[in-house]
C-alpha cells in the first residue's frame, strides 16, 4: 500500500482532494489573531558564564518567572519577572591593558514586564510596560503593538511602537543622572506560504539620544545620538517526511555608530516519540567596527573629547554559536526543557574584511533549564 492509482486510473486520494472543495473543511483562521486558549506558567533558570584564555570573566545566574493568563472578553495578560545575579569582571577588552577594567564586581538586576492584549476578530492590540533596575541603571519602557490579519488570514501585519527612558548613575561617579531616551518603531509582515511553510519579515527603526558611553571604560566617549535600522527575516518549513521543522533566519543591522552586522541562524526542530523534541542550531554573526573604535594600544593623536571607544563589542569580529535545545512534554500540560549554547567570538572570523587586531578570543556559554505548565 498504497497503489499509485485506483482501478479506474484516478489518482491516490482523489476523494480527499474532492472533499477539500466543500465549504468549511479548512479553518480559515489557523494563523489569525486568536486569543491564547490556555494559561501558562514557566520558571526558567539561566546560568551564563564567559571567559577569555586564562581568565574567567562574568557569571550570571538568572531565575525568571513567566505567567500568561487569558481573561474574559478576549483579553490576555502576560508578564515576566527576572532576577540576575552577576559576578566577575566586565570583559577585558584587550590584552595589553589586562586588568585595567574592573576589579571583580558583584551586581544584580531585577526586571519585570507586563503586557495586556485585547483580541478582536482580525486585530489584536497590546499595551505593555517594563522596568529594569540595577544598582547603577534604571530603565523604564512602554509599548503599543497592533496586529492585523488579512481576510484570508494568510498574512498578518504588525505595527509596533515603544519608548524607553534610562537613567544611568555609575558607581564610579563618572555618570551622574545621565539619561537616554529611545523610540522604536516596528513594521512587520508574516505570510503563510503553504500549509507547511511560513515567512516573517520585520523592519525596526530606532532613534535615541542621551548618554551612550560606558562609564566604566577609560575615556569611553560615544555620540549622544544613535539611530539603528534592523531587518529580520525568518522562514520556517515543516518537513513531513522527517516530522521536523527547519528554521532559517537572517538579520541585518546597521547603526549610526558605523557598525553593520549580519546574523544567520539555522535550526532543526526534530520531533521525537513520547513528547520529546531536540533542536540543534548554529548561528553565525559578523560585524565591522564602529567609526570611533580604536584598536589597542591607545591611539596616537587622540584629542580629548573626541568620540572614542575600545569596547570589544564595537570592534570588528565574527562569532559562531552552536546550541541544542531539548524539550520533553508530559501529560497534564507539564513540560521541561534544557537549552545549551556555546559562543566563540574571534576577530579572525569576521566576514568581508579583517577583524580588529589584538583581541583575545572570547567565549561564552548559556545553560538554561525550565519547567512550564499550561492550565
Amino acid at each position, binding site marked *: 500500500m498504497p497503489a499509485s492509482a485506483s482501478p479506474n486510473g484516478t489518482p491516490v486520494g482523489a476523494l480527499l482532494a474532492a472533499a477539500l472543495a466543500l465549504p*468549511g473543511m479548512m479553518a480559515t483562521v489557523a494563523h489569525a489573531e486568536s486569543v491564547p486558549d*490556555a494559561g501558562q506558567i514557566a520558571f526558567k533558570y539561566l546560568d551564563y558564564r564567559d571567559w577569555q584564555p586564562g581568565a574567567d570573566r562574568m557569571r550570571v545566574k538568572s531565575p525568571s518567572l513567566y505567567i500568561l493568563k487569558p481573561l474574559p472578553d478576549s483579553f490576555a495578560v502576560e508578564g515576566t519577572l527576572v532576577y540576575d545575579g552577576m559576578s566577575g569582571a566586565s570583559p577585558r577588552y584587550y590584552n595589553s591593558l589586562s586588568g585595567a577594567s574592573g576589579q571583580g564586581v558583584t551586581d544584580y538586576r531585577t526586571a519585570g514586564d507586563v503586557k495586556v492584549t485585547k483580541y478582536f476578530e482580525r486585530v489584536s492590540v497590546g499595551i505593555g510596560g517594563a522596568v529594569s533596575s540595577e544598582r547603577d541603571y534604571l530603565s523604564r519602557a512602554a509599548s503599543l503593538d497592533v496586529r492585523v490579519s488579512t481576510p484570508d488570514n494568510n498574512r498578518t501585519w504588525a505595527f509596533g511602537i515603544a519608548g524607553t527612558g534610562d537613567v544611568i548613575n555609575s558607581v564610579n561617579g563618572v555618570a551622574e543622572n545621565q539619561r537616554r531616551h529611545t523610540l522604536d518603531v516596528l513594521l512587520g509582515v508574516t505570510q503563510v506560504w503553504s500549509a507547511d511553510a511560513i515567512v516573517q519579515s520585520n523592519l525596526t527603526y530606532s532613534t535615541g539620544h542621551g548618554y551612550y558611553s560606558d562609564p566604566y571604560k577609560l575615556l569611553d566617549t560615544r555620540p549622544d545620538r544613535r539611530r539603528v535600522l534592523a531587518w529580520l527575516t525568518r522562514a520556517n518549513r515543516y518537513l513531513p517526511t522527517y516530522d521536523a521543522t527547519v528554521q532559517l533566519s537572517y538579520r541585518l543591522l546597521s547603526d549610526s555608530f558605523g557598525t553593520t552586522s549580519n546574523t544567520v541562524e539555522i535550526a532543526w526542530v526534530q520531533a521525537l516519540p513520547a513528547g520529546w523534541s531536540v533542536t540543534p542550531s548554529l548561528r553565525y554573526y559578523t560585524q565591522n567596527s564602529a567609526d570611533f573604535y580604536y584598536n589597542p594600544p591607545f591611539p596616537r593623536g587622540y584629542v580629548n573629547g573626541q568620540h572614542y571607544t575600545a569596547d570589544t563589542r564595537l570592534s570588528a569580529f565574527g562569532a559562531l554559536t552552536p546550541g541544542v535545545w531539548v524539550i520533553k512534554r*508530559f501529560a497534564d500540560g507539564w513540560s521541561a526543557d534544557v537549552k545549551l549554547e556555546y559562543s566563540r567570538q574571534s576577530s579572525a572570523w569576521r566576514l568581508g574584511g579583517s577583524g580588529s587586531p589584538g583581541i583575545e578570543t572570547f567565549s561564552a556559554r548559556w545553560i538554561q533549564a525550565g519547567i512550564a505548565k499550561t492550565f
Partner: protein
Amino acid sequence: MALYRYPFRAMATDDELQLATGDEARARRAAEAAIADVRRIEAKYSRYRDDSVTTAINRGAGGAAVAIDDETLALLRYAGRCHRLSGGLFDITSGVLRRVWDFKRTPPSVPTAAALAAATALIGWGDVEWDERTLRLPRAGMEIDFGGIGKEYAADRAATICAEHGIMHALVNLGGDVRAVGPQEDGTPWHVGIRHPRRDAAAIAEVALAAGAVATSGDYERYFELDGRRYCHLLNPRTGMPAAHWQSISVVAPLCVVAGSCATIAMLLEAEAPAFLDAQGVSWIGVDAQGRTKGPAAPR
C-alpha cells in the same frame, strides 16, 4: 486547562463535543456555534422536513428544475465524485430502496424481484440533470438523500468552527462519525474505540487520532435476519440487495466526509474494498463476515 463536554442530539444520533481549553467562556461559544451549524445542516438537508432543500428537490422529481445554492452544489459535486470513483455504487439517489426494504417489519421479508426492479429503475445519479444553479430529477418517484455524507460533512464543519474559535484540542462525535482538532491537550492522540459489530457496548479495536477523522459503516445499524442470513441497510443500487462481505469497515482519513464515504463505498465494494481503500490513501479496519479484523489499522 480543562476538558469541557457538550452532549447534544441532532440528526437522530447522540452527539458530543469535547473541547480542551483554559477558557470556559470560549469553549461555550465554540460549542454553541458548532452545534448551531450541525442543526443548520440537519434542517437544510433532512428528508423528513417539508422545508428542506432535499424535500424541495424530491418534490420536483419528474417536474421542473429546482434552484440550488453554492453549498448544495459543493455537496452534489462531492457526491458525484464518490459515484464515479465507486463505479456507481455510491449513489445519493438510491434512497428509493427504502420503500421496498422494511427493516422494522415483523415478520421480516425479502422484497420480490419485481419490487426490486421497480425500485432500481428509479436510481441513477448519472440521469440527474444539474448544473451550477439548478437540479432536476428526471423521473417521477426519484429522490436524493444526503444521508451518506451530511453527518460527516457536519462533523468536519463543527471541527473547523472549533478551530476558528481558537480551540486547538477538540473531538467532535456525531453519532460515531468522529473528527479530531489536534491531539489531546497533553499532545497524546485521542483514543477512539471501534464498536464491535456484534456486541453492543464493546470495542473491537482502537484508533489513535492526533488529527483527522474516523468513520464506520456497518451492517448492524438497520437489519433483519432471515433463514440464517443478515440483510442490512447498505444496499447495492444496481441489484437492490444488501452488502454482505463485511460486518463493518472503519476508515481513518484527514476529513470525516472522506472517511464516511470511503467506509460506505468499501462496504458496497465487498471483496474489492481493500484495493479501493488503499488507492484512496486512507487507513482502515475491516471486520469480515467471520468477525476477523483486517486492514492496516487493525490490531496486531
